[in-house]
């Protein structure tokens, strides 16, 4: 295990806890949080400035007289105690706009050090290695031979290391380290004078894993990029198709995974259900009494699991010191769990299931997804296709959005095919899947065996926090769906 570089801040963190306790706070935590990025970007073959981003500091959260305050700084001098004093003063002043005291669920204290597996330490990676890979990818694009030309491309590799040292007034003491490697790209295509910008992977997603530099090999860019260029070229040249009746469709892992994230993960965040995110990311179509409610067909199984090795959303303890576990959110179409932190779990009189995360030292921990996915089924793709007479296989997408209660969603296909008599036919351009969450979950009738994940950056909170996650799913078949066409 690579040594955690933050252990030297132990005295600082306990001095913060001691200072907070002088004010008789109900609860205090101090989190030293370091996020380091080394990013290489190649735009149209030219290198952008190499980016080295090293952000670190301490985030302090306290509950005083039922009021939550959060303070953060990277100035570890006398101003630190002044900041704590000011925060307590702000808690006192804010009491007049506090209608209900904030309390936390009771959790056991732990003393742990954990990290994601890392064979080749990211600290030892040279910029030349990163640029060399990007130049290879650039070569695959510039040498792509097609009647679709690719005049613009922006390619990036980001190596990041996130380290945390967390302590609280209940005796919990946790050191953690998660390195991550990811690849992103945006490419512009020109076909008969029409410009189309698209990403590989589609949907502005990325290839990403937690771990050391060895993970870059798992992306298999030398095969993946040329294969995706052919697919993108065919998609761009395809023509749209109008469907007058409801049809059967299959959505690929990229779309189904995003549906798991948008239509299950987000509305299952207990803080949204309670209205805490209402002014920004919105609320939920669920109420707090939703446990046991049937939400979809018996084929719907959705989970969120931070313990998946190598995943972007990997963690073993959350930022409230609670041990993580797999959360089975929907089983057989029935709601079985929500995503909780200690504040929301207190309100339900249950234990937290460790969904509280912060992405940087100056952001409060809030409820976040980790790796949210539809569980795989028993079929292979040919079996899913076999009894569809006329339909569409929408493998991935570019445009998507959903309303702020997570009811009405839309995905516009990028790689998509007509299905005729149980087999894939020609490409079809930009089929539009625009339906409610209830309609989606109730229309699922089969899932394939192949579970696939994509890396994504999940936005939530104020200030905005982009959290690394995986979205995942198998191919999912839905019956009797209205498919539109992008005008």
């Amino acid at each position, binding site marked *: 295990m690579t040594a955690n570089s933050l252990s030297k801040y132990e005295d600082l963190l306990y001095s913060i806890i001691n200072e907070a306790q002088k004010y008789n706070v109900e609860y205090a935590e101090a989190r030293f949080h370091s996020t380091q990025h*080394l990013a290489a970007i190649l735009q149209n073959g030219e290198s952008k400035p190499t980016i*080295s981003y090293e952000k670190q500091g301490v985030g302090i959260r306290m509950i005083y007289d039922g009021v939550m305050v959060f303070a953060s700084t990277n100035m570890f001098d006398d101003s630190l105690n002044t900041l704590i004093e000011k925060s307590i003063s702000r808690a006192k002043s804010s009491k007049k706009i506090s209608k209900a005291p904030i309390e936390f669920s009771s959790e056991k204290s732990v003393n742990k050090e954990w990290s994601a597996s890392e064979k080749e330490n990211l600290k030892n990676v040279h910029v030349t290695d990163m640029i060399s890979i990007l130049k290879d990818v650039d070569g695959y694009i510039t040498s792509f031979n097609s009647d679709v030309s690719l005049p*613009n491309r922006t390619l990036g590799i980001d190596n990041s290391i996130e380290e945390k040292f967390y302590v609280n007034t209940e005796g919990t003491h946790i050191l953690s380290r998660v390195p991550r490697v990811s690849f992103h790209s945006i490419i*512009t295509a020109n076909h008969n004078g*029409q410009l189309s910008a698209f990403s590989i992977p589609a949907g502005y997603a990325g290839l990403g894993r937690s771990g050391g530099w060895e993970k870059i090999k798992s992306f298999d860019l030398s095969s993946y990029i040329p294969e995706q260029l052919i697919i993108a070229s065919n998609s761009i040249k395809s023509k749209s198709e109008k469907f007058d009746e409801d049809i059967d469709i299959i959505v690929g892992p990229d779309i189904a995974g995003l549906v798991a994230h948008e239509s299950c993960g987000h509305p299952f965040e207990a803080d949204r259900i309670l209205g805490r995110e209402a002014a920004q990311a919105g609320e939920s179509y669920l109420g707090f009494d939703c446990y046991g409610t049937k939400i979809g067909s018996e084929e719907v199984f959705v989970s969120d699991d931070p313990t998946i090795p190598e995943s972007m959303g990997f963690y073993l303890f959350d930022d409230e010191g609670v041990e993580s576990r797999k959360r089975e959110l929907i089983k057989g179409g029935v709601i079985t769990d929500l995503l909780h932190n200690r504040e929301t779990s207190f309100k339900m009189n249950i234990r937290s299931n460790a969904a509280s995360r912060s992405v940087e030292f100056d952001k409060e921990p809030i409820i976040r997804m980790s790796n949210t996915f539809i569980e795989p089924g028993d079929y292979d793709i040919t079996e899913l296709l076999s009894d569809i007479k006329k339909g569409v296989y929408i493998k991935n997408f570019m445009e998507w959005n959903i*309303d702020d209660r997570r009811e*009405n969603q839309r995905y*516009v296909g990028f790689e998509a095919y007509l299905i005729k008599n149980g087999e894939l036919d020609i490409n079809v351009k930009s089929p539009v899947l625009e339906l409610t969450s209830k309609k989606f979950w109730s229309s699922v009738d089969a899932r394939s065996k192949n579970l696939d994940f994509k890396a994504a950056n999940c936005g939530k909170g104020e200030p905005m926090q982009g959290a690394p996650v995986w979205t995942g799913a198998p191919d999912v078949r839905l019956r009797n769906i209205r498919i539109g066409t992008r005008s």
Partner: protein
Amino acid sequence: MNLNNILSIVENKISSLNCDDYSFLLSKEYEDLIRFSNNSINVFDSTENIAIEIYLGKDKKRASGVIYNLDETSIINYLDSLFQYCNDSPINNDYTHLPSGPFTYEINKHIEIDQINNSESIIDHVENSINSALQHGASRVCGSFTSRMSEIILITSAGIESKDESITNLLNIRAFTESKSSGHGLSCSSSIDDIDSEKAGIDAGDYAKSSINPRQCNPGKYDILFTPTVAADIFQFVGHAASADSVDSGDSFFANKINLKVSSDDLSLSDVGNPKNGIYQRIFDDEGTPTQSTKIIDNGILTNYLHNITTSNKYGVKSTGNAGIMAPFCWNIDVSSGNTTFEEQLSSINNGLLITNNWYTRFQNPAAGSYSTVPRDACFIIENGKISSPIHGIRISDDIPRQLLNIDSLSQTRKWINWWEVETPVLSPSIVIKDVPVTRST
């Protein structure tokens, strides 16, 4: 922490590296933030940070970054690493030396640095906005108040050494009724005294109350009146498309359109670095070039892209003072006002919609500007020039270039918009766009 000590550590070390170009921008930021929901505070955030952004260029190779670890050893180690990254980077054929001036900066007279320890005012504004919304029909209110003050010092190898400061206050409020209808209000200003928390609460409460019992709206094309909050979202993407970096990366719908008609004749739109009464002010960019007012669209014609020194050299023009070392970006977008009142805009629509807020704008094809966005909070049918029934569950699916050409009117009055969904401050009128495609879920 002594800023002069930090500056001298950076300057001494960076001088020893013998770079062809360097810059460092030291920023000190204080931010207070209250988040509230269900008429009650959730958390009071207080942040105090010092960060140093550093750029190094040598032998046409470049590296840049940010460090928050401010002890001497860490700064020196960081600069050694950054210099190594710079040496390991490929030669950039567009490499351009940092601008050398001498420059005259507009002295920033628009703000008063009096914001620190202003927490009582922030709490009062939050309480006031909640009460206003409740008095105007809301049953529960949520939102946020952010008060941010930043001081920056820029030093470059080209002899630039200058300071600037900025204050931003943002109140964002959302009100809900028992029947789950909702309304949105906001108030943005550099001065906390100019925040109108009562009006923001009234707007949110009134919109929530007037949008109870919404009905479904048929998909189709509608003339739509967008309030400044929604119009600002469209215009921030116009600003993004005007960045020369967006053009170079291929995700701009303004590529190859300089001196061509891109919008209705009524629309003019500028990027402004230091707007009077604005909510974010910068007198110089991250390379030291003075910020300015740059006309992007002049009466319907695309006139300029936004540049830093690298893109300006590549395009053979002067920098517009929009660096970003990595890429030029907008400071503030100033959209021209029109000659109609909001009421006249309403009365100009026989069969259309009024959209008061939106979110989740995503592009199918950024190069074509094809996108969709989800209206939220109060939306209404407009019939024969008057607001009729509230609606819900719709989505706008359109192309920004088409929308710009189909702007029918801009209002006389404008409003500063900057909130969760509109990250670039925009001074926006309300606008009417003809024939906007509207869809809904099945």
